[in-house]
């Protein structure tokens, strides 16, 4: 082959290679960019935003809904008098003049000025007819009851892409159900820009968010929020919180804590306030823990209600420590009924010794102590109990009266649901059912987590707790005529390796009516200053709320 042929052959091969490379560049590397350019000439992709699902209380009231608002934008090319228009817009939009003026000075056809502007402001701006200013509809999250149930609900903020996203509480836990699915549609238009009916393609369908229907009762929630707020002010506490549960289903009827935040303007509050202390904080429960230990010993058949304590005549010495009663008064040979009535620590040490550490830990396990409850809210933390090897005799003794052991409030109330519900511990749940955009309702059935004690033990323990309310330190606050089972708690707070005698967590846990419980409630008051005792702070809050709920449920007195 002569060199000429070879040259021509190589020339053509080279040209073909160049063509192939160029085609590869257009058809593979820049394929999506060119396709988008082509698509722009005959249509546009429309983002179809789904509507976020609503959150409704048990009476069907939307406690979290969607509200129409507006994005105010401007076309700087149409602005005629920059200074006067900037001043006018600044007044209506509550943004400084320099910011507005800078936006209107940009060499663009469209600049956003402010989002989430309400209807009233939009109408006011419309009336003065500012050239080049327009409005784009948008839906924002709206909470009609303001800060009511704020920590239960959480709030809706933005994610890294600028899309809505739920944080904390129900908004966070059920975000995927609530947010729905964004749709994309290709709208092909004619030369005049009119959409062509036959040329509308849904590339992906938009799906609206699902609604949540709660166990939460709006009336009870409102009453509780009010009482908790007033309680903090009345007792000079640093904070207070409460949960009300239906012990038969585990449904959360109300959940409140104060101080709180307003989900409509969550940015104005400290991040610390977003956290729900009822799920995310651990504390030493103090005497409210005693009924669980007592119920364990009763269930194991190791004691009876009339068993007498033979170590209750004075302080109990364990190693280098002395266990004393809260008021340093001792009741020789008192019964187990009286141990709970007097909230006697030495009596509980007696019960703990009868029970033994291994059996006590086994019952803790059955009551779910040290485990998460699985409540459907974002932010629940685990408060694990120490391993078997690291329990010293003093730890086993103090755990019987709720010191040296930590729980979350939701964990404690869930454990108590076993006493109020014939021995069955229920999974706490806020959402009763989920409703699809098509109207289909998916019910979430109550779930039994465990059965730590028998029905008989639960009845006995209930009577012991009724006696504690009727004859205990908090009897003065109890509504007359009702049988209420309950227990006060005054737990000291560990500070730098020792307990501070002047700072306590005062609490009260109980349920009513004792013979057929309709609600189970835990009230916690953190560092009250008017009195350090649960009987004088948390108990009055409990009984005020209980009285209102009994009236609301139309339950007549039984005594």
């Amino acid at each position, binding site marked *: 082959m002569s060199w000429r042929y070879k040259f021509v052959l190589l020339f053509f091969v080279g040209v073909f290679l160049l063509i192939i490379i160029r085609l590869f560049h257009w058809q593979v590397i820049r394929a999506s960019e060119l396709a988008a350019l082509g698509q722009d000439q005959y249509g546009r992709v429309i983002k179809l935003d789904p509507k976020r699902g609503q959150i409704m209380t048990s009476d069907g009231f939307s406690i979290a809904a969607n*509200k*129409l608002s507006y994005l105010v934008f401007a076309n700087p090319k149409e602005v005629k008098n920059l200074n006067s228009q900037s001043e006018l817009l600044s007044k209506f939009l509550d943004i400084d003049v320099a910011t507005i003026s800078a936006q209107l000075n940009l060499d663009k056809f469209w600049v956003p000025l402010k989002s989430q502007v309400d209807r009233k402001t939009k109408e006011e701006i419309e009336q003065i007819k500012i050239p080049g200013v327009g409005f784009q509809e948008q839906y924002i999250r709206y909470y*009609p009851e303001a800060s009511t149930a704020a920590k239960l609900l959480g709030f809706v903020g933005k994610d890294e892409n600028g899309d809505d996203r739920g944080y904390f509480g129900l908004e966070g836990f059920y975000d995927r159900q609530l947010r729905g699915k964004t749709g994309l549609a290709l709208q092909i*238009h*004619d030369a005049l820009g009119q959409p*062509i009916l*036959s040329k509308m393609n849904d590339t992906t369908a938009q799906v609206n968010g699902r609604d949540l229907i709660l166990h939460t009762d709006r009336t009870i929630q409102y009453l509780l929020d009010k009482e908790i707020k007033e309680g903090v002010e009345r007792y000079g506490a640093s904070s207070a919180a409460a949960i009300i549960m239906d012990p038969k289903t585990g449904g959360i009827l109300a959940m409140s804590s104060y101080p709180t935040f307003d989900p409509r303007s969550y940015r104005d509050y400290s991040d610390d306030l977003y956290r729900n202390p009822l799920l995310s904080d651990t504390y030493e429960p103090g005497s409210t823990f005693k009924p669980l230990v007592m119920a364990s010993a009763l269930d194991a058949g190791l004691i009876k209600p009339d068993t007498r304590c033979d170590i209750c005549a004075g302080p109990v010495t364990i190693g280098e420590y002395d266990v004393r009663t809260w008021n340093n008064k001792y009741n020789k040979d008192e019964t187990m009924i009286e141990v709970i009535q007097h909230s006697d620590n030495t009596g509980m040490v007696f019960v703990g010794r009868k029970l033994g550490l291994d059996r006590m830990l086994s019952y803790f396990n059955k009551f779910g102590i040290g485990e998460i409850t699985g409540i459907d809210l974002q932010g629940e933390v685990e408060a694990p109990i120490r391993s078997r090897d690291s329990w010293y005799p003093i730890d086993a003794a103090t755990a019987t009266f709720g010191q040296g052991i930590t729980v979350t409030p939701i964990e404690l109330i869930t454990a108590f649901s076993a006493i109020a519900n014939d021995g069955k511990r229920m999974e706490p749940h806020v959402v009763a059912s989920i409703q699809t955009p098509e109207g289909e309702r998916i019910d979430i059935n109550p779930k039994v987590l465990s059965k730590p004690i028998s029905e008989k033990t639960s009845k006995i323990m209930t009577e012991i707790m009724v006696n504690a309310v009727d004859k205990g330190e908090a009897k003065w606050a109890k509504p007359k005529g009702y049988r209420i089972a309950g227990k006060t708690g005054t737990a000291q707070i560990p500070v730098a390796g020792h307990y501070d005698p002047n700072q306590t967590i005062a609490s009260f846990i109980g349920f009513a009516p004792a013979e057929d419980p309709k609600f189970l409630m835990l009230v916690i008051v953190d560092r009250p200053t008017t009195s350090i005792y649960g009987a004088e702070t948390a108990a009055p809050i409990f009984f005020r709320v209980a009285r209102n709920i009994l009236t609301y449920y139309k339950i007549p007195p039984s005594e």
Partner: protein
Amino acid sequence: MKRPILLIIFIAFIIAGLTIAQINVGNKIATAGSELSQIQSEVDKYERENSILQEQILDTSSYTNIEEKAKELGFAPVKKSVSMVSAPPLAMKQ
């Protein structure tokens, strides 16, 4: 020879008829775009009104608002409830 001519004329008529029909239907569908815009804006309008009404209903029926209005009208919370339950008789026939 007559048969193919008739057949060709017949087919030509059918083609012409179908073409006219297609143009007519295509035209109607294409112009329905503006109709679609109108319907869509009607739907948007009703959705907007619904949303505004829902907001007003929620605002008005919220406990926060009701409590405020009740206070303005001079109502006070009930401190003590009265139970209207009749006392059981001294002796009951079983």
